[in-house]
């Protein structure tokens, strides 16, 4: 009896501790966002740095984003053909491919790829700067780490992700179209008809809204984790892993939440 009581207490304590921990992180992320808003008037500092970061995020990610979207589009096309051939009109496949890519695969796969590529980079960069006192050095010179380091990264990532998603959508749809032509005996006219039949302009807006939130997730979380790094090289390693995992989980959570809020 006493043992069961102590197990219950332990579970309560554990839940309490984790809840406190989570709440403190949410509070600190909110404070970081507030600091970013306060740093907006220092545009002379963050604008040039945001351009540099945007180039690294956008141009630097084109290959991997295009590759992922291309394969995703082609595989979606082949699996749609495999599932539906003979049971429904072939032009339906055009609609399924285009809608799958615009609504889900384009934004989510691009965001997950960038959570690894950009999120890890941001967390490692800021984490290393934290443990080698470079961030303290910047602040000791009367400069803000938020306007010099965080705001340019967050803005670059958040604004470039929708652009990369448009690129991913185009590559994915093209790859899907080519795969459909090659394996489903579908004409161009069938594909275009199907795509237009199911397409709604809101779908594009939905995709962009999702990308914007995903962009925030893959930049704010790694920047926060990077700034909170402690304990040397091991700490930087831990931060990098934590940043990628947290950003990826948040993307999946946001994906579900935004689908519920915006599509119903």
């Amino acid at each position, binding site marked *: 009896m006493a043992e069961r009581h102590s197990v219950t207490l332990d579970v309560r304590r554990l839940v309490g501790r984790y809840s406190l921990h989570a709440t403190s992180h949410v509070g600190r992320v909110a404070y970081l966002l507030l600091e970013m808003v*306060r740093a907006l008037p220092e545009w002379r500092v963050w604008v040039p740095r945001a351009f540099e970061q945007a180039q690294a995020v956008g141009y630097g990610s084109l290959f991997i984003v295009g590759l992922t979207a291309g394969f995703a589009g082609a595989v979606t096309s082949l699996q749609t053909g495999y599932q539906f051939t003979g049971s429904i009109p072939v032009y339906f496949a055009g609609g399924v491919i285009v809608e799958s890519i615009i609504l889900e695969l384009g934004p989510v796969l691009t965001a997950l790829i960038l959570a690894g590529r950009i999120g890890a980079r941001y967390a490692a960069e800021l984490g290393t700067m934290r443990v080698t006192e470079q961030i*303290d050095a910047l602040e000791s*010179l009367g400069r803000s780490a938020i306007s010099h380091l965080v705001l340019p990264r967050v803005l670059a990532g958040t604004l470039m992700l929708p652009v990369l998603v448009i690129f991913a959508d185009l590559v994915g749809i093209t790859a899907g179209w080519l795969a459909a032509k090659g394996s489903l005996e579908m004409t161009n006219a069938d594909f275009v008809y199907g795509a237009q039949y199911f397409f709604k302009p809101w779908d594009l807006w939905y995709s962009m809204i999702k990308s914007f939130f995903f962009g925030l997730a893959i930049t704010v979380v790694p920047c926060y984790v990077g700034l909170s790094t402690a304990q040397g090289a091991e700490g930087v390693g831990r931060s990098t892993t934590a940043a990628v995992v947290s950003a990826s989980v948040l993307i999946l959570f946001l994906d579900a939440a935004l689908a519920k809020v915006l599509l119903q």
Partner: protein
Amino acid sequence: MIELRQVSKRFGDLVVLDGVDFEVRTGETVALLGQSGVGKSVLLKHINGLIRPDSGEVYVDGLNVNRLRRKELAKLRARIGYVFQAGALFDSMTVYENIKLGITDDAAQSDEDYCRERVARCLELVNLPPEVASKYPAELSGGMRKRVGIARAIAGQPTYLLWDEPTSGLDPVNADIIDSLVEKLDDELGVTSVVVTHDVRGAFRVADRIALLKDGRIRAMGTPEELRNSTDPAVQQFLERDLTEPVTH
């Protein structure tokens, strides 16, 4: 003038500072001695607001550091040069860009001619050749990195200089060069300095007054002579080791 009143700071269960009272008068150089891990750097970071105390107050030029707004704190920090233990140079920037960032006056920083002149002057003050300006921190030796860190700290013409273990990790010859630099810069620039160190010999060489931090409090503070004649066993125990060892350089 720098003044810490009853400053306490803990990290988790570890009490690092426990009601510290500490004062540095304008124009003087105070060395803060203590064993490694005793909280000397933590105390130093309270002075320019990099760390906030759990309780107590920190004043610089009569301003309460922890009550300043963001912009006021940035202005105050621009008057306080901070030399970091490992240099803390921005590794993605050249030496020139690092030192230029130390020019805290934004108008001056956008004047490229002034910046070139100022960076060259700072490199000269720390005895580094002008060619170093185009190098990256990774291309420099430990001693040179420290000197670039000093050049960056003095680039903004500060009125205060905070030195965090300026000679740690250096061989005796380089440590001696840095000690000479501390003396030279304090004299030439007329700054008020706090030197955190565990090098007793260096502290006796550069400081007007010396403080010993122990168990989270200032255990003793006075001129080098007063400390040398102190009857406090903790002070004697700390000083004995270094001052009785033969000079190796």
